[in-house]
């Protein structure tokens, strides 16, 4: 007998026997595959309540576990079978926190393509619900710092500081955070794109506009790297932004 979504069942709970005799009756054949039952005592229903309390998380109540989201998900289909949006919603609902924690290494992999949200027949904003689940997990300290969150915070800080982002700063700043040695000029402390221990692909890519003699492009981006594009009158707005984000615990500094 086939087991639906077999990867969700731990291998040690799947029992398969060539010959199986129960109470003197030979049940081999169709019934030779058994999933051993388990008892769950450790669950926390307040987790679900907390997800529902998030502004984007409240549509989780509509989910009827049809798995349309999982079937659409490119991360599930092309990357890792363990990434399963339906299952995450299921676990969050039952409050099985330790099960969620076991999947913490894949849970952040969502690429925000919104296929799940788009196709959900019940109007669950799946992508947003998953992000709400992640946020609640992070708030409770159930999930460690993961790469995409690090990047999100890094991005957020730039937006918060200047009101606008700048591609060069994002790229080189992130490369630096990855542990590469980025050479900076001594006065303004801005990264110099062609020096330091950057990955080879980036070096080659950065040299391309020079090879093409694309001077306008170089000047524009150099200008932006030196003088960060800013939104005018940002300071007053920044205070309000700071207030709401501190409420959510979104600010790092």
């Amino acid at each position, binding site marked *: 007998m086939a087991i639906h979504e077999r990867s969700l069942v731990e291998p040690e709970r799947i029992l398969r026997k060539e010959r199986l005799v129960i109470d003197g009756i030979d049940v081999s054949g169709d019934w030779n595959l058994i999933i051993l039952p388990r008892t769950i005592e450790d669950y926390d229903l307040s987790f679900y309540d907390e997800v529902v309390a998030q502004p984007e998380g409240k549509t989780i109540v509509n989910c009827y576990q049809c798995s349309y989201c999982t079937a659409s998900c490119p991360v599930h289909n092309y990357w890792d079978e363990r990434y399963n949006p339906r299952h995450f919603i299921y676990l969050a609902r039952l409050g099985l926190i330790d099960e969620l924690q076991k999947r913490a290494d894949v849970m952040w992999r969502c690429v925000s*393509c919104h*296929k799940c949200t788009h196709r959900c027949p019940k109007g669950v904003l799946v992508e947003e619900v998953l*992000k709400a689940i992640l946020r609640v997990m992070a708030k409770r300290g159930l999930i460690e710092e993961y790469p995409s969150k690090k990047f*999100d915070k890094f991005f957020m800080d730039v937006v918060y500081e200047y009101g606008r982002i700048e*591609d060069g700063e994002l790229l080189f700043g992130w490369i630096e955070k990855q542990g590469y040695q980025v050479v900076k000029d001594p006065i303004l402390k801005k990264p110099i794109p062609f020096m330091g221990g950057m990955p*080879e692909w980036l070096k*080659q890519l950065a040299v391309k506009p020079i090879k093409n003699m694309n001077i306008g492009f170089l000047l524009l981006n150099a200008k932006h790297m030196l003088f960060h594009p800013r939104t005018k009158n*940002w300071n007053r707005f920044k205070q309000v932004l700071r207030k709401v*984000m501190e409420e959510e615990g979104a600010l790092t500094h």
Partner: protein
Amino acid sequence: MAIALHLRKPPMGGIGKKVAYYPGCSLEGAARAYDVSTRIVAKELGLELDYLEDYNCCGAMETKNVSFWGTMLLNARNMSLARKQGHNVIVAPCNGCSFSLQRAEYFLETDRKVFERVNELLKEGGVDPIDEIPYTYHILEWFYHEAGPEKVKERTKKPLKGLKVANYYGCLYTRPHYYARTYSHIGGQDEEARPSKRDTADDDEHPYYMEALLEAAGATNVEFEPMHTQCCGGPHSLSDEQVSEKFVMMILQTAKRNGADIIATECPLCHASLEMYRHRLMMKGVPDVDVPAAYFTQLLGIAFGYSAGDVKLKDNLSDPIPVLKRLGLV
């Protein structure tokens, strides 16, 4: 609890010929080619872009993941600026920007509490509160509805003859239907709620606006389903390299194997992701990934008789010039 289905009625009298133009941060930096070519195409098609003065970042996916109210505020500020300039419609050329604005529109429209709190916070931050929530459209939808293939055909001086294009729309142009106003074939919407003949948004699973415009300009479209709306790695293109690399490889290989000369894009982030990972995949020696990418506005600009320098083709790191040169287009 009621299902959060929502389909806002399109603005009265269409999107309009003059709209607020929200370029987004990317278009004023690394993706300036898209900005320049967009302005060229808009001018040629008789449409007017009113630059949104002093805008701020939409927050993209990254801010959305961290802070709900932060994203609402960032986008509400832009909406307020658009209202101040007297516009009811904002047009954004980036999938991420149009998504963020449309998402804010959705939450402001459906949740009264969000609307009131955001307005209070805006006042506190020294920005006018929003009286009426403006609509946001992707620039491709605007071109299609206010100019359309006929106008493109009329303006074409140098048809893109023989150019085989794979049209890459990316994720957030059509999805999710709550924000992008596309008609969902699945989501339980009733037929009556559907905008008439999809007059403001593209088809959700089979978008065709870019194909129609480029075909009118003389190009040949290759079969590119379902990769035309497949994710390129998006917000994870820097933070999760393995996944992004695989997704981009799938997109590029499908395009190449279906015979495309070039991939037409309509989002600066998808474009950057495709170009960056194309370069890395080629360095690794992965087969069938050497398809260059160009913004659809660049291709339209060339069809309208502009030179490669006018539409800044040199800015594209994937180098589409040799392909176009071979066909005698530049």
